């Protein structure tokens, strides 16, 4: 029986597998974006607006920097056995003027990455249990 696809964290991204997007908020007062969502008050100290609405963030960005985990991270991360090293990228979103972290998809190693490389958001499995496949956002180079 197919496992249920469940977001690993509720409300941080859309579940549209063809074109997923991170869900943040945008301040109606000053235009600042927030990810994860800020819902109480704008954190721009010269704004203080409470007009924060949910928005989808840009699906594409450019690599600011990158690294990897050569060893399994400690709990609460759930590592597969055997563990495979995986890359993590910090990605600059032009419109939002912010950098967002994410794992790099498809097992692409650090050798396949460089600053400025264009990447897009995809959904992939973070870990599984008996009933669920938990989904997370990852960055994938658009040129692949």
């Amino acid at each position, binding site marked *: 029986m197919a496992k249920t696809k469940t977001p*690993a964290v509720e409300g941080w991204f859309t579940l549209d597998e063809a074109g997923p997007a991170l869900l943040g908020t945008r301040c109606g007062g*000053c235009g600042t*974006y*927030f990810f*994860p969502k800020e819902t109480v008050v704008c954190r721009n100290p010269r704004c203080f607006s409470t007009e924060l609405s949910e928005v989808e963030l840009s699906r594409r960005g450019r690599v600011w920097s990158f*690294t990897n*985990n050569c060893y399994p991270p400690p709990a609460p991360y759930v590592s597969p056995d055997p563990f495979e090293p995986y890359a993590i990228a910090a990605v600059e979103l032009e419109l939002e*003027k912010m*950098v967002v972290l994410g794992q790099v998809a498809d097992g692409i190693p650090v050798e396949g990455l460089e600053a400025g490389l264009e990447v897009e958001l995809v959904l992939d499995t973070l870990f599984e249990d008996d009933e669920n496949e938990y989904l997370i956002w990852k960055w994938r180079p658009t040129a692949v």
Partner: protein
Amino acid sequence: MSNEVAILGVGMHPYGKWGRSFVEYGVKAAQDAIQDAGIEWTDVQFVAGGETMRNGYPGYVAAATFAQALGWTGAQVTSTYGACASGSQAINVARAQILSGMCEVALVVGADAAPKGFFAPQGGERGDDPDWLRFRLLGATNPIYFGLYARRRMELYGSTEEDFARVKVKNARHGLTNEYARYRKAFTLEDVLASPMVSDPLRLMQICATSDGGAALVLCSMEYARKQTTNPVTIAAVSTVTPQFPQSVIEMPNFATDSAAGAEIPDTPFKDSITKQAYEEAGLGPEDMSLAEVYDLSSALELDWYENIGLCKPGEAERLLNDGDTTIGGRVPVNSSGGLSCFGEAVPAQAIAQVCELTWQLRGQAGERQIEGARAGVTANQGLFGHGSSVIVKR
């Protein structure tokens, strides 16, 4: 009015993996600092303790725990937490008590008994805690952030793995004869580059270990100090600044930077602002510093600090290192103690331990690692969740 307080005594517990209670490390450091100050424990009017997260209730009430272990005297206490910057928060509170005239003599103590391996968040299902979530959703350990900064240097300035490894070689040599250091062994460039990769481009020997250890200071008013000694080392500034919005560099434990879509990025980035504040308070500049102790959580991060604390312009840190300017005997030695590279990290002790090293150097008591004619020094450190930390010490 002078903003100075005197450092009357310093003390440390050797770093290592001793497997004992953090209280023991703090008490030993405190006793040494009190003895070094030439006073009695019963003379101490105020105790500021740097808190640790890992040792149950006693860790959360550090100052009272140390005061009880040293023997209750009725001294007033405060405990502070600012992650890796907990120690400078404690120093700052003690200093404020003295400068405001609320007390004359204060003891500052930080000690930790750290677990082996990666630092991990508190247990349980804590979906509202960014520190828990970064491990759960990304596996973003501390070395992941260090790796991002290191790779960014390589992409921006063409830094090499060899540059980073040379920081480790330098610090290992500095710490060789430091009796408080955990690792006292010289390494070659080849040794460092042969150690296993942890978070590319950083290898095991370039990433700070977690340690047991303790550090303590006796601080007092200038008036009190003059009764004890003729030429005390003083604290000229303490900076505990937080970032300014938008903070445009990714920081632990966050998933994203602030967005700069609605506000201009400040002229001074956060890490530059930490010592900038301290220099302004002290009326001194980077050119006045004889030495610096910076938070080398990774070898590459030490190079970032050279630029952040104003020793050189962005992109010039490798040249400074490779010219020997930051080696003992050079223009402005950095991490003469051996740094985290030789100590590992005992979180609440760290900012205090940096001040211990500056004090020994300024007094001319640093033995084989002595920097000749040291007159002023600066510490730089940063704690998770936006805690800046810098102390300027002068003679």
